[in-house]
Every structure is written in structure tokens, then in C-alpha cells.
């Protein structure tokens, strides 16, 4: 990756860091993962001359913490940058600025060799259970491959037994270790992906839309499995999804992203019961309810338009072009993510507590 030659504007104003951090659940203990003002951009090349003509700021100043054993749900629509956050944490993209501290180590400046050591603790489960498994390797090879790179985790003579244990752990038949991915269903393949992620005994697992591709009956099985693993192994999750019901189901803490920025973050309870940001309110209102007739009649909030292109985001408040509350100030002054209305951090000049009026 060549260094980005475009002159860069100073980063977006960020309030004092402490105001961004939701009250720590385990006071005193340092978080397992701490992300501060993370920015990741991609060069925008002209098709004709392949010159860099601009940049897409996919992640434009994102901060959050994940405590050991905790689960942060990161929600957002396409183009919100949620997957880029994950890819940057795990080292698949390079951060332009900001910091990622995992177990006290700064990942953005870590030498490659040390990164390998840290990466062991930091695993990822991908969305597509078809594309993320090597079709020419058996399940046993797929799962034990990581032990070739980290031979100290499991000695070679234990590989076979350990693979059987892992398969059992994720609810697959250990006798199927010699089978190939195509012999499994989508849900089973996702279990293989989970077993592979667990092979190195990580502390944090990033689930990037890990259940989105699955049918609902199978999705529920995998969600239960993830909850069991968290309980039994003390795993922490960064759970990225566009489906709010799923995020609510699994997360302790939730951050809502829109066009590269976190617009609101709170505990799961707070966020879903008392959303303060208009975008969160609209998002929650748009979630299909399987039993609408059991709820009091409510006026749905339907916001117009689509998510603007991340290549040309609106100035200052990025949601203002679709917001029914937007006024002049929204185009003049960036709303800071800070605790508002004495409740939780949100980035809106007109944050309102509907106090259960929507839900």
C-alpha cells in the first residue's frame, strides 16, 4: 500500500476521550480492546489515469472499548464502515490514524512479528461460510492449519484429538473431521469457521455479519452457540451486524455507525429502549416486527433517501441530509459524540429522549 499522498484535513473534532467511553462495567480493569479515534481511508482512483483523485474515509474517527468477556454490537447499514473497523483492528487494512490497544499493546505501530503473536488472541468469523473455507482442505486441515503457524498452542501429536474436541464444542460430529466443506450445510460450515476461530484460544472474536447469510432457523442455533462459547470460554465479541434484533440479542453494549462515525453508543438496554439519536430512532422504527399487532399503534419513522456515498459525505453531521430534525447548525458544526440528556453518548445537536414513545 503506498502512503496516501492526498493532503488530509485535520481529523474531526473529538471530545474528551473519557466522555466517549461508556461507564466501565468492571471498574478499574483495563479493557481488552480499546479503539480511539480510528480512521481508515481508501484512495479513490480515477478509472482513466489511475491517479489518486481523492479518498474515501470509510472510518472517520471511531472510539470504543470492549472489556474482557464483553460483547460490543456494532450496527450500521451498508457503507457505515463497520466492516472496515473490524478489518483494521485485525490488520487487514491499515489505520490512517488513531489507536487500537489490545491487551495493553498498540496494534497500529506493532512490528509484523509481534502482530503475529497478538493475532492469536484476536480471531475473526466471516460472513460467507462458503467463501471463507478452503474447498480443497478437509475440516481437520482447516482447523489445524493455525497450529502450524503457532506450534506452541497444540503439539502435533495432539492435533487430531484437539480437532475432535473443537468439532464437538461447536456442535458438529467429530467423525466428520475428514470431510470437505462442500459436504456440510451453510450453518454447519459457519460452525467450522467458528471452530477455526477458536483453535488458537483467542480472547476476542470478531464476528463480521457471522449469522447474516444463514436461514433463520439455523441462525438461531449459531447465536445460541456463540452465547454458550462466551459463557464457557470467557470470550469477548465484537459483533458486527446490520440486523438490530440479532445485535440486541447478543450484545452488552451497542454502537451505531453511520457513514464512518459512531452516532450513538449505550448499553443494549438503554440503546433499544431510549434511543436519543434520530438515526437510531429511525433504524429501530424500521426493524420489521413479527407481531406488530401486539404493540400499541405507533407512527413509523420512515426516513427518505439512501445512505449518501462515503466518497462524498455531507459536511459536519453526516446524517443531516436524511434527518427530519436538521437545522442550519447541523451543516455548520459537527455534533460531538458525548453524553447528552444525562443518559448516554450520542452525536446529535437535537438528541431527544422519546422515553419509550417509539418502543
Amino acid at each position, binding site marked *: 500500500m503506498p502512503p496516501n499522498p492526498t493532503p488530509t484535513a485535520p481529523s474531526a473534532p473529538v471530545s474528551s476521550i473519557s466522555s466517549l467511553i461508556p461507564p466501565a462495567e468492571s471498574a478499574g480493569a483495563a479493557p481488552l480492546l480499546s479503539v480511539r479515534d480510528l480512521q481508515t481511508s481508501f484512495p479513490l482512483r480515477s478509472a482513466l489515469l489511475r491517479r489518486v483523485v481523492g479518498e474515501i474515509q470509510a472510518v472517520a474517527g471511531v472510539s470504543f472499548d470492549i472489556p474482557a468477556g464483553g460483547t460490543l454490537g456494532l450496527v450500521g*447499514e451498508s457503507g457505515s464502515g463497520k466492516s472496515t473497523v473490524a478489518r483494521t483492528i485485525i490488520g487487514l487494512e491499515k489505520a490512517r490514524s488513531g489507536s487500537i490497544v489490545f491487551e495493553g499493546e498498540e496494534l497500529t505501530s506493532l512490528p509484523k512479528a509481534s502482530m503475529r503473536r497478538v493475532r492469536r488472541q484476536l480471531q475473526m468469523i466471516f460472513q460467507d461460510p462458503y467463501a471463507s473455507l478452503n474447498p480443497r482442505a478437509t475440516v481437520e486441515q482447516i482447523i489445524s492449519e493455525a497450529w502450524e503457524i503457532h506450534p506452541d498452542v497444540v503439539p502435533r501429536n495432539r492435533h487430531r484429538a484437539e480437532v475432535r474436541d473443537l468439532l464437538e464444542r461447536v456442535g458438529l460430529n467429530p467423525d466428520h473431521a475428514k470431510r470437505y466443506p462442500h459436504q456440510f450445510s451453510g450453518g454447519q460450515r459457519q460452525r467450522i469457521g467458528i471452530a477455526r476461530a477458536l483453535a488458537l484460544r483467542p480472547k476476542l472474536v470478531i464476528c463480521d455479519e457471522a449469522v447474516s447469510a444463514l*436461514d433463520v*432457523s*439455523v441462525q*438461531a442455533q449459531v*447465536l445460541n452457540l456463540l452465547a454458550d462459547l462466551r459463557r464457557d470460554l470467557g470470550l469477548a465479541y465484537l459483533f458486527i451486524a446490520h440486523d438490530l*434484533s440479532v445485535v440486541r440479542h447478543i450484545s452488552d453494549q451497542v454502537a451505531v455507525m453511520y457513514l464512518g462515525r459512531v452516532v450513538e453508543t449505550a448499553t*443494549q438496554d438503554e440503546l433499544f429502549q431510549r434511543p436519543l439519536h434520530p438515526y437510531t430512532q429511525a433504524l429501530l422504527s424500521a426493524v*420489521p416486527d413479527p407481531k406488530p399487532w401486539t404493540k400499541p399503534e405507533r407512527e413509523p419513522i420512515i426516513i427518505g433517501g*439512501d445512505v449518501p456515498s462515503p466518497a462524498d459525505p455531507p459536511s459536519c453531521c453526516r446524517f443531516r441530509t436524511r434527518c427530519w430534525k436538521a437545522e442550519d447548525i447541523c451543516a455548520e458544526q459537527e455534533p460531538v459524540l458525548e453524553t447528552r440528556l444525562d443518559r448516554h453518548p450520542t452525536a446529535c445537536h437535537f438528541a431527544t429522549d422519546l422515553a419509550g414513545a417509539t418502543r
Partner: protein
Amino acid sequence: MTALMRVRELRVEFDTSGGVVTAVDGASFEVAAGETVALLGESGSGKSVTAQAVMGIVPKPAGRIAGGSITYDGRDLLTPGAAKGLRGREIAMVFQDPLSSLNPVFRVGAQIGEMFRRHRGASRREARAAALELMKRVGIPAASKRLDDYPHQFSGGMRQRVMIAMALALSPRLLIADEPTTALDVTVQAQIMDLLARLQAEEGMSLVLITHDLGVVADVADRVVLMYAGRVVETGPIREVYEHSGHPYTAGLMGSVPVLDGARDRLTPIQGSPPDLLSLPTGCSFHPRCHYADPLCTTDQPNLRPLPTPPPQHQAACHHPEGVLNHAP
């Protein structure tokens, strides 16, 4: 209400390298005039193939309609020639992926206008005016400026609006929408569902919504037809089906969906995975995943029949609906 479309014992087969797959295996249901029906099912349930059979677009030569009948307004759609002039005019369809359903090299206005030119013999100018009118109706902002844009210049949600405009062009009496919002973000999904419901009410047309998402249709559908492994397993008024599920598969689906409010209990998923269509279980296809299965279920395929509880339109294909009904969460 009388049935506008009637599907009877429909059977659709596909030749695959592994053998013959019966994608739709004796599905029967009706759509009344002015009614919104949700055709629900997970992948492989046969819901989309059923729609393809209605539209006469079952992929050939691999696929064929091997039995059953589809009648529309008393006319047999499966007799060659009889359906002429119905499909595309009276029965229109909207697909999941609007980008691959639009021609990338023609301007959007011209593509919508072509419907009027081909079917109504409209002039270029008339077609353009009609296209503009339709684009406004489906809520495309600055429609007059966007008439001459190409499909790739539209966002996913706007493309789906263009598709809906084309489907509405000839004032169909039946609109089939196959996963119309699956590829869209949730805020845009809400817009499109709102639009479909509004147009359905304005036009008084029948709407068949094909989806895997139980929630997305709950606000708009009158009735549900739930498919599993090519068969209809439960049907009835949506509220009855969701609240008092008579088939263990429906009950299992309801227990699998995390909801936005209420307790965050452990989900109660259906065990196992959807069946391999190449080697379907004997008897009831659902029996290997079912808590209520007994020896009868492994040998006899249950047919749709009214549940012991009213209304009679609420039917399930299960040998033991009492157990399911009594176990309602």
C-alpha cells in the same frame, strides 16, 4: 372473496447432476382479488420456484412443471397459449436484484416507457410522459431529471422503485414481489414495503410477497402461505399463523427470531438443518427435526387440513397439530 389465482398440486422438477430434484412438491394455495399474501419459506423451500412457475419462467431445460395446475381468473396458465397477454400485463413481477433485472445500456425512462410502446402502442413522447408519471408515483425524487439516467446511476432502493414502476406500468391485477427488500438496508426496506402497501391499496391489486423474513410482511400481509421442502406446511390469516402456529416448523421459526423488545431469552431454534432436496426424508419432510414426530410421521405425508381451532382457513399439514397448539409459547 373469490380467488383470482389458484395453484393446485403444483409440482416442479429440476434435473441436476445429482438426480431429479422436486423443488415444488404438490403445493396448493389461492390468492383472492385485492389480497396480500405472504409466501414464506427458507432457502430451498420452493417459494421462488412457485413464482417462476406462475410467471412461466422456470429455468429451461433443467426445470419443468411436472404436474398440477395454475389458474388465473379462470384461465389455465399452464396450457401453452392460454396465458398469452396475461403475464407481464395482468400478472407482473418484481425481483430481488434490481440491477441484474434492468438493462444496463438503456436509460431508465426508456426502459419504463418501453412497456407502453410495446403493449399499448404509445408514441415515444407518450411513453416518456407515462414513464415520468410512474417514476413520480413510486417516489423517485427529481423524476424528470432522472428519466435519462442509466440504472447504475441509481441506488439500490431507487432501482427497486424503478422495477416497481415497470411492473405497475400496465396496471396489473396481481403483483408478485420476490424478496423485494432482501438486498436493501433496513431503512430503505421500510420505504419499499411502505410503497408496496400503498400501491396495493391504491390499485386494489393482489400482492404476493415472497420472503424468508417473518417480520417484514407482518405489517402488510393478510394471509400467510408457509412452505417447507417444496410443500405448503401451514396457511391462514397471518395473525392466527404467527400467534397460534399449528405446524411445528412455524412454531420453530417463531422461536428462532430474536425480537427487538421483550426478554432476551435463549432462542429456541429448530434442531438440525433444512433437508437435502435430493434425498428428502420419507413421510413428513420435517419429521427428523420435529419434537412431535412419531412412527406415523416417518411413513405418511400429512396433507393440509383445518386445525381443531377456528378459523377453518387456518390449516396445517401436520399429524399432531394439537401438541403444537397446546405448546404455544
